[in-house]
């Protein structure tokens, strides 16, 4: 079934493109045994998708739409959050500058290189911020904050 939230056209400005990500399978993975998983604040390939380390014992798994739950051996907890989160990509030469409007982390390449991920805030809204390339970020937020976040980013892009 269609997800009405994700129907907006991408926002394109000079050096900036903001778009919803396609549907994905997402799990919150919790375990004390981080074997095969990235260390805190890092990301890595994982089971056809990615594992993003958000806490010392917490990973966000983002897998392709339709993926089956991954097999994980050690004691763990896996919780479906595929519909809780909504993803946005922010790409372009000014992507970092745009996110910097509402995010209080230093997004220079030296302190926030590609691959780094963390939970943080944008304009008071909790997000997961993942730098997927030098000029490309993925932002995940909870569904009910997504419209606000999208509007805030679009306005900031207008005024950048």
């Amino acid at each position, binding site marked *: 079934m269609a997800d009405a939230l994700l129907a907006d056209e991408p926002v394109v400005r000079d050096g900036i493109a903001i778009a919803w990500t396609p549907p994905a399978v997402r799990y919150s993975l919790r375990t004390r045994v981080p074997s095969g998983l990235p260390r805190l604040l890092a990301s890595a390939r994982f089971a056809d998708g990615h594992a993003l380390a958000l806490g010392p014992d917490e990973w966000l798994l983002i897998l392709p739409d339709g993926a089956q739950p991954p097999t994980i051996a050690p004691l763990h907890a896996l919780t479906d959050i595929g519909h809780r989160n909504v993803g946005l990509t922010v790409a372009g030469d000014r992507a970092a500058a745009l996110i910097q*409007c509402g995010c209080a982390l230093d997004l220079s390449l030296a302190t926030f290189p590609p691959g780094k991920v963390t939970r943080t805030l944008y304009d008071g809204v909790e997000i997961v911020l993942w730098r997927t390339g030098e000029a490309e970020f993925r932002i995940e937020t909870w569904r009910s904050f997504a419209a606000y976040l999208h509007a805030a980013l679009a306005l900031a892009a207008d005024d950048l």
Partner: protein
Amino acid sequence: MSAFRLPGRGRIDVARPVAFRFDGKAMTGAAGDTLASALLANGVHLVGRSFKYHRPRGLLGAGVEEPNALMGVDRGPGRHTANVRATTIELHDDLTVETQNRWPSLGFDLGAATNLLSPLFPAGFYNKTFMWPRSAWETLYEPAIRRMAGLGKAPHAIDPDRYTARHDFVDLLIVGAGRAGIEAALAASASGERVMLIDEQPELGGKLLANPARWDWLAGALTRLDDAGVVCLSRTTAIGLYHDGFVGAVERLTDHLPPATATGPRERLHRIRAARIVLATGAIERPLVFADNDRPGVMLASAARTYLHRYGVAVGKRVALMVTHDSGYQVAFDLAEAGIGIAAIVDSRPDLDPSLKARASDLGLELIPHAVVIGTHGAKAVTGITLAPLGSRQVRKIACDALLMAGGWTPTVHLWSHGKGKLGWDEALGAFVPEGEMDRVTCTGACAGAIDPGHGVHAEALWSPRDPASFKAFVDLQNDVTARDIRLAVREGFRSIEHIKRYTTNGMATDQGKTSNLNGLQVAAGALGNTAPQVGLTTFRPPYTPTTFGALAGSAKDALFQPTRKTVIDSWAHAQGAVFENVAQWRRARYFPRASEDMDAAVARECRAVRTGVGMFDASTLGKIEVVGPDAAEFLNRMYTNPWKALAPGRCRYGLLLGEDGFIRDDGVAARLADDRFHVTTTTGGAARVLGMMEDYLQTEWPDLDVWLTSTTEQYAVIALQGPRARDVIAPHVEGVDLSPEALPHMAYAEGRICGVPMRLFRVSFTGELGFEVNVPAGHGLAVWEALWAEGQRHGITAYGTETMHVLRAEKGYIIVGQDSDGTLTPDDAGIGWAVGKKKLDFVGRRSLARPDMLLPDRKQLVGLLTDDPHYVLEEGAQIVDVPNAPVPVPMIGHVTSSYHSPTLGRSIALAVVAGGRARIGETLFVPMADKTHRVTVSEPLFYDREGARLDG
């Protein structure tokens, strides 16, 4: 060209005239002018009326230090800005400004009568005069004072401008782009570091802009900075310095443009985090304190130099100077060389620098040493001065049209002080300078006290042969504080400079003491018989200069004021004409009126539908936490009052959460999905708080437990079907679940599919009727809702909102945490002691339930109330008393927590907490309201279907 414009001087472009309106009068200036310089070029000195006495005032300065020339700038509807300094307003076409604080006009101000009555307005006059009778404050004194005083008008229309913000991260932030700041930037520019240089003025250069000999160097330096990638921001004021290298700065983007051409955001707030900060904020020249030193035409010497060199404007044709400091001489020499007449240089010092004397002599200037100005003359502009040799009564008058003051320099240490930097007294400067160290922050240039303008003396008010009580010598021009006021404050017993400041208002408000603090301190020190460093300085607070609310609010207005969380069904409710209410950050449908229904009619219809047919409710906002791990049951057992270990998978339980103090914090239903997995629900408003509390215990008290918590509030849309026909609505769409009462009884849980998508199904009821809560992945929520809505049409399905939900649950006496409980209610108080596991040895809050206070019989307990008048709905929050018409103070024994008209019962019902309430069931109590005292009968907090027979439809 006007008589005061000096051809060939200044950085302005006289070839580009700029038309503007000042108090409705059309005037012309030049590109590059400020409003102040353009007014002076037009011969206008009178620019405002003073705050308290409505005395005529002129320009004192040429920059942000200006205390007098506060303007209202009108850029169209909603774009009125009050209290803008004329010295910082860049002239542009269509600039429209009005002076403030005068009525009916600047030239003729009736308020000036207060000047004649000024003996009635001493320091602290508000505190003394308007104290009695108290009632007159609101009705008489305050409105009258507000009309007379105040700075500017607050705009009434909504500000249509946009404001933006960004975070900046730099290795080095330099505040102030004068010589020192630029040199610091040049020194760092080759390092490869991220360097940012900000300055409040439209042009970088600071006082170099008033020094043509340095313009070539300045241009070269700025080019080098640009080439080196240094970020240079003009029109950017550092308003505050905070911990850990954090500086707030406001960049003004459009105010300097004609309104018609201004696009984009008006201002940008920079939140700058810097590894190192260099404060190169310069120094401000100090005025001198003497009788009638506030007359238009009395200015800072440095300002006259700025007007001359930067704007090509003469501040007068015959200018006198009162100096206590060598720096005034250079100004006199520059003015003289520009052909401006110098009436005299009056210097309080007996012994003058021979080279200055020689230069003055060469230029033919009259130099009067060891003398002081003791008064000024003129009505709305200075026409002359009176001076006297120190210690002598042999006064002399000199005609002039401007009087310049050179009283030395005060380092601009505001930002240093914001960061709690220490200050030390520099005797040679007669000022406080930064002292000691501050993490990340250093000062340089004049801000650090590195000023070499020659020597000077620094005293309090200038000597006068007249009785100091007989004249006004202003210390703080903006707040109309005189030396006499400060001395009076000391006489009245104020000792601390902070108290003197507040009593006299010296250095307060938008000015932040830029020109007044040091002089005020010196006067106070003199009166106290102390030295200035012993008396100390008042605290500077952000913002350094007035800042728009817009800049601070940024984009947080209208739809972006804060997130409005909407469920996936919100759009459907909106299309159905739902009336919404806000619950925490959520927007929830409150009721669904049809045609001309009001809320009561809609709620009555919705209630009847649920009780007799089927209703449909969006419960998606309920907090949800998935609790997973082998110790999940153990963890819940420790958190909640109820026992969880024996709960079988496929069953639900009402859970009650206490704080460690034993009071109710939250509640909700939890289902055991599997041995190691629970789906826990919380109240809508409590979701984040409960998860945080659980994480706290899990991480810090019981880190050995193998269990993890995940918020799934937004993973699922929750559709509640409530009413005797609820099963009929979902049955055709459900796969894989036996919905029969035997297979899925009340408080059972099952997983299956609905409308082809995965479903978590709860057989629960918050209405007392047969109920199901269908949880589906949120992205499918709207489609499932619409399918069930369509299915329900033949069963007369009715959508209901939170108001009906409240009424239905109140009829059943189900509490809402936070409405019927207030943080002082125990489970027993709430009548839900049954939810406390009696055999459990421990859970959060259990120990507190055994405290003696928790066992008292007269604790407030939840009861029902039935009014004698069945049509009267009690007000929620209304107090309850035992005896009507008792003498005040009447003992209050409780209050109404929930109150509604019950369509089911055809009468009003209420829940309340009443001291010893359960023992009072059947008794009559009273609820006094403004109109009358209402009789109520205490009842069980359960009004409908006591047996619970309807839960099975």
